[in-house]
C-alpha cells in the first residue's frame, strides 16, 4: 500500500511538472528572444552531454587515441551524415566501439 501511494504520488508530481507549464504557457505569446533561446537549448544540451560522454572518463578529460568512445563516434557521424538513420547509426557506432574495445583493450 505504501508503495502504491508512492507510485501514485510520483506519477502525480511528474504529470504536474509537465502539464502545468504547457497549460500556463499555451495561452501566452512568448517574446521573440525567449523563443530564440528555447530553440537553441536542445542542440546545446545534446552537445554538452555528448562532449562529456565522449571525452570524460573517470572524471578525467581523455582526448587521446586510446579513447574508444571518441574514436567510435567517427564512423557513427559518417553514417548519420550519409543516411540520417538513427538505428543504423547506433548499430555502426556500437559495432565500432566493440571492435575498438577489443583492439585497444
Amino acid at each position, binding site marked *: 500500500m505504501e508503495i502504491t501511494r508512492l507510485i501514485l504520488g510520483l506519477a502525480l508530481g511528474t504529470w504536474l511538472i509537465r502539464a502545468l507549464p504547457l497549460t500556463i504557457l499555451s495561452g501566452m505569446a512568448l517574446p521573440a*528572444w525567449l523563443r530564440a533561446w528555447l530553440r537553441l537549448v536542445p542542440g546545446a544540451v545534446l*552537445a*554538452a552531454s555528448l*562532449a562529456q560522454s565522449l571525452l570524460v572518463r573517470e572524471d578525467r*578529460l581523455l582526448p587521446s587515441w586510446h579513447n574508444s*568512445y571518441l574514436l567510435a563516434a567517427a564512423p557513427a557521424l559518417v553514417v548519420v551524415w550519409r543516411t540520417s538513420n*538513427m538505428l543504423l547509426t547506433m548499430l555502426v557506432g556500437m559495432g565500432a566501439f566493440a571492435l575498438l574495445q577489443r583492439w585497444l583493450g
Partner: protein
Amino acid sequence: EFALPASLVCLLFLLVRDREGLWVACLAAVLALVLRPMLGNSGTTMAATVVAATLGVMSRRWRLRA
C-alpha cells in the same frame, strides 16, 4: 555502452541545421568540459546549456543591431 553516445551523435546531427545552432552547440560542448571540474557531474550540462544558449541569443541581437 556506446548506445547513448551513438544516439546523441545522431540526434545532434539531425537537430543542428544552421550555423547559429552549430556554434551554440560547439560552445556548449566546450563549456561543459571546462565547467565539469568545477561543478562535477550534476549541473554541468545545465550550466553549459544556459550560458551557450544565452550567448547565442545575445550575439543574434548584436548582429541585428549592427
